[in-house]
């Protein structure tokens, strides 16, 4: 049985339907991303799974329980990082971790979770003295301290600099390697691509696409783009695909990139044509995402 099973869930706030019939499932040990623009219904969906919100209709099972009705038995097996990081400012890191550890029967040690989030040596510091990124990591450490089977991360790296982002990704990958199931929301394509085994693209409260990142790209039937600087299209050899001029460059969109590239480079060498800025770009998740979410 899957760890999360969601069927046709709906949730409205007044006249606005935030979640308009979402179905999804998450298997044990998977990292699943809910990807979508702001206001797509990701957070509402996750908060229904976390037990913060009550669905209007549909069925939800998380760890075999209904999160809205399940009490501390559910809470003790789930770790949460909410969209906004809120920690009591006056406590030291150690005091906060020890406090949270006391809520769980089988807690990990504060030292261990600080190691997991890569924040050793701040034990004695007051929370208010930590940087925003450090507080976010403490938030993550709190989510891990109860040794949960399932972890929800709601936009875990929003506002991070690129370095902090990479290390947060490493932490998430680390969680997966110790057997945790992770559900995360993000509006960053690269994040979903780097972390998720599977993803659900959500727009306007509905799932518009799901699968592994590569499968989604493949299914979109987008073609590989080959671009290079060259003044004149007329002189080009015939290639299998669509040839366009964009400014001073030539763009070839093709389903057979290897053949096309071979034709172009062969022609260039044979005719001693100097082509510059040669670039081959596979269809990206971003292209697919923009296409799906703008629809």
């Amino acid at each position, binding site marked *: 049985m899957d760890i999360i099973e969601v069927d046709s869930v709906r949730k409205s706030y007044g006249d606005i339907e935030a979640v308009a019939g979402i179905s999804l499932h998450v298997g044990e040990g998977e990292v699943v991303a809910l990807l979508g623009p702001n206001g797509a219904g990701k957070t509402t969906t996750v908060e229904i799974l*976390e037990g913060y919100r009550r669905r209007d209709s549909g069925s939800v099972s998380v760890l075999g329980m209904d999160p809205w009705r399940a009490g501390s038995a559910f*809470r003790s097996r*789930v770790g949460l990082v909410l969209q906004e990081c809120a*920690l009591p400012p006056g406590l030291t890191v150690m005091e906060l971790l020890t406090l949270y550890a006391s*809520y769980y029967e089988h807690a990990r040690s504060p030292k261990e979770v600080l190691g997991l989030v890569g924040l050793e040596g701040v034990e004695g510091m007051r929370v208010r003295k930590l940087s925003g990124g450090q507080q976010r990591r403490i938030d993550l450490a*709190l989510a891990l301290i109860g040794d949960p089977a399932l972890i929800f991360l709601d936009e875990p790296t929003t506002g991070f600099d690129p370095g902090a982002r990479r290390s947060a990704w490493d932490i998430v990958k680390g969680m997966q390697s110790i057997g945790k199931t992770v559900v995360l929301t993000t509006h960053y394509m690269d994040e979903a691509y780097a972390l998720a085994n599977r993803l659900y693209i959500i727009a306007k409260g509905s799932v518009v696409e799901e699968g592994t990142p590569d499968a989604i790209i493949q299914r979109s039937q987008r073609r590989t783009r080959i671009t290079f600087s060259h003044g004149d299209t007329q002189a080009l050899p015939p290639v299998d695909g669509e040839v366009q001029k964009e400014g001073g460059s030539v763009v070839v969109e093709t389903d057979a990139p290897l053949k096309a590239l071979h034709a172009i480079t062969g022609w260039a060498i044979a005719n001693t044509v100097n082509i510059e800025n040669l670039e081959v770009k596979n269809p990206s998740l971003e292209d697919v995402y923009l296409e799906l979410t703008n629809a």
Partner: protein
Amino acid sequence: MHNLRKLLRQIQFEQRAFWRNPASAVFTFVFPVIILVVLGNVNSHAHFRVGAHSYTYDDYLAPAMSAYGIISATFVSLAMILSIRRDSGVLKRFQGTPLGSTMFIVSILISSLINVIIMMVLTIGLGMISLGVHFPANMLETVAIMLFGAVCFAGLGVAMAAFIPNSDAAPAIVNGIFFPIAFISGIFFPISSTSILGRIGNFFPISHYSTAVFDAYNPIGTAPSVAGSDVLILAVWGLVGILFAIRRFKWEPSRR
């Protein structure tokens, strides 16, 4: 055993969070102490009569300041802390743990009762040392009525938090309600209960609380015993507060 340990840890957390926030600790404790010492010493020769008995101002002020301090440590403090924590998302974060909402509320109530006891010792002690006010005539009754009021005002404080839209508004709303009512309830100076201000004040629980505390404290040993009507009105307010708190308390910031 696990639950007891959880409770003690959570109370310890509440105490740390309180004392390490200078604004809350100072506002709650320093203010009543300063009023007690300053007003008491400035007006120490004033006399007035309640019924057939004559009192000095200091005899009047010391128990009133205990009442004031206790309300400050319960109603004011809880309304502030809870609305600030709700707004910043700390409450929501707690709600996502197996701590449980009952355990959370019980802990913060016990923590504020610890502050109430400190406040009792501080105000009664300072009244004796600084103003020469007598030790309460009936200590047990005094402590009982003080704690009873503390529970009622704690309930009202939790209920108040449900009314506060966001944490920026909290100090203005809470103090804007507390100070004027404390004033017309005769906390700082005696106000005749037949005057217009006195009649308005009598609608609220503060005047009944300070009267009950005064009657129990009875610094010169001739005051009437605590009136049942004062205790009853206090109990009704407290009960309404507690019921309202249970029904309307919110854990999440209202941003939608």
